[in-house]
């Protein structure tokens, strides 16, 4: 089964945020890009597939208004569209989209912040590319912002705002099997555990709402019409996206789930392997390839990306 490989060091440790690891596989160059958020910095690492060679880069959050740029980053994720790859950052101030190497910021969207601070913090969290040209981002108010992304250039526009969630969005995921037969394209999750299932298009259409059960849904995936959701109770639940029928429930963890991932080409949802990273609060976990050959893990306060591969 899996065994631990040499870790990849990162410049600064991972913050305790949901889904605090994003992975982009660059097949032509046999490279994997990783991003891990630390406070207001994004650690970027490009590593060879064996993990032995790597180079670092740090992205400081460059926000619209430089004078107030100390805001914390909530998530960094690569969005893969058929025409281009973008690196999307969400923070307490807004949403930034960069070219995939982090070199050029192509778009900046500021969040509405109230003049006088209220008890509820403002931030964006939950990032997903959907089908041909959309990138969806969640906001603490519960809104889901849909951006229309052209095949090149910076003419990105906010095309729609979806208002179905009442609590802060935690995570979003689009269909990852590549199958075009599935009706549901996107699932959004919030702090109350509510899941909304969407069909994309010129206008997004709500297909179903799957109620929560008093605990936050921190991480979600959508695979061949099945929603896989991880919760604060440590449970993983599998729902049929369109009908909301619960197919399986796993008492998986003894603590809050921070991250969940699926290897789309394995065709299985099965308990394969477990491993305890001693004395580490896991905050990011991602498969490095579609076949689930390798996966990577980050932990709060830990300045490394831990890798596992199949023997």
């Amino acid at each position, binding site marked *: 089964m899996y065994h631990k490989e040499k870790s990849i060091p990162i410049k600064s*440790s991972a*913050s*305790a945020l949901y889904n605090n690891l994003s992975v982009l596989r660059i097949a032509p160059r046999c490279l994997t890009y990783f991003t891990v958020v630390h*406070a207001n910095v994004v650690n970027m690492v490009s590593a060879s597939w064996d993990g032995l060679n790597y180079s670092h880069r740090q992205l400081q959050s460059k926000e619209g208004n*430089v*004078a*107030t*740029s*100390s805001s*914390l980053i*909530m998530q960094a994720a690569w969005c893969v569209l058929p025409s281009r790859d973008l690196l999307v950052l969400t923070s*307490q101030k807004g949403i930034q989209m960069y070219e995939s190497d982090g070199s050029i910021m192509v778009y900046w969207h500021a969040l509405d912040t109230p003049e006088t*601070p*209220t*008890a*509820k*913090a403002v*931030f964006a969290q939950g990032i997903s590319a959907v089908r041909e040209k959309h990138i969806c981002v969640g906001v*603490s108010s519960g809104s889901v912002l849909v951006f229309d992304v052209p095949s090149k250039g910076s003419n990105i526009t906010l095309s729609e705002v979806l208002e179905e969630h009442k609590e802060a969005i935690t995570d979003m995921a689009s269909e990852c099997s590549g199958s075009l037969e599935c009706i549901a394209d996107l699932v959004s999750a919030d702090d109350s555990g509510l899941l909304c299932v969407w069909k994309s298009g010129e206008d997004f259409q709500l297909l179903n709402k799957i109620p929560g059960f*008093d*605990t936050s849904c921190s991480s979600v995936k959508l695979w061949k019409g099945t929603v896989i959701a991880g919760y*604060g*109770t*440590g*449970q993983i639940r599998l729902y049929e996206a369109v009908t909301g*029928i*619960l*197919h*399986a*429930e*796993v*008492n*998986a*963890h*003894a*603590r*809050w789930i921070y991250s969940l991932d699926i290897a789309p080409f394995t065709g299985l949802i099965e*308990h394969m392997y*477990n*491993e*305890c990273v*001693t*004395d*580490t*609060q896991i905050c990011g976990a991602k498969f490095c390839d579609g076949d689930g050959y390798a996966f990577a893990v980050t932990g*709060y*306060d830990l300045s490394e990306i831990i890798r596992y591969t199949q023997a």
Partner: protein
Amino acid sequence: MSTRTLPLLFINLGGEMLYILDQRLRAQNIPADKAKKVMNDIITTMFNKKFLEELFKPQELYSKKALRTVFDRLAHASIMRLNQASMDKLYDLMTMAFKYQVLLCPRPKDILLVSFNHMDAIRDFVKDTPSILSQVDETNKQLIEVSIFLKDKVQNSNGRFVLPTSGPVPYGTHTPGLMRMFSCSGEEVRRMQFRDGGNYNAALREGSFEMYGDRVIKLGTNMYSVSRPVETHMSGTSKNSSQHTKVNTTPNPLAKEELNLLARLMGGLEVQKPAGTDSGFRVNLFATDEEEEEALISRPDELSYEVLNIQATKDKQTNAELAKIMGEFGETGEPSPSSSSKGDDLLAMMDGL
């Protein structure tokens, strides 16, 4: 993430500070009446109405440095004096203890229970002084109203904590290891077990979020006792923990704004001057004066307040005021009880900002 993190941070760190001071006051055989006065004065200052009103307003967290300044002032709110090395050590112990408690919290909501444990202990410290007790109770009521989860943490560079993989799971969580499959009509059709790699038991009952009650959780209770005193020996990580702290010296564009916030906060901090008859005394967080002296010498320069390099802009008048404040912060010597006027000037000036 919440904009109500600051009061929780303040109460919990303040609670830890009181535990440590209480233990040190006993260990150094400070007369009971003086020790009582110190505890009462600090608690009175901590729970000052005006101060707490500012604290409970929704706001961002302060920088580490600004928060440290608040606690420096608080520790010197009475007739007790700490030198820089002892203050460093006190702050290291406080922050490490609370970080441990946050990290070990089974659920986000349990941070409230940790805070209640601190509040319960503080109430116990002042149980004989009804006026202070009612002041503390007022804050407890406010705290009960705060039910926003805390998801972000202060980051320090301490060592790693041991995280258990056994014992009871958090309230609301099932012990891991079970998979259940359901049919379309919702009937359970299959059940599978797997090994979870830990050794967990069922959850305990939920702690009480009321004014009085069993919090169940032990995090946030007083760890220091006669049999387990504050670690005064310098060893391994504790010796170096302050040295390892990387202090960010790049100019912070928010420094000015933060100073203003701090001034507003401190405006509420009424610091009691030692009265003529009351002679002050010094508390040492180390085993001997020699060790304290040594720690003071090896104290890294960047920990001194002189690194407050504020590039104040434009407004000349503000600039001059800030320069004055910076000058005051630059004082590194041990404040002796007889010359407490420096600190009072600073407060007066901050009030005037």
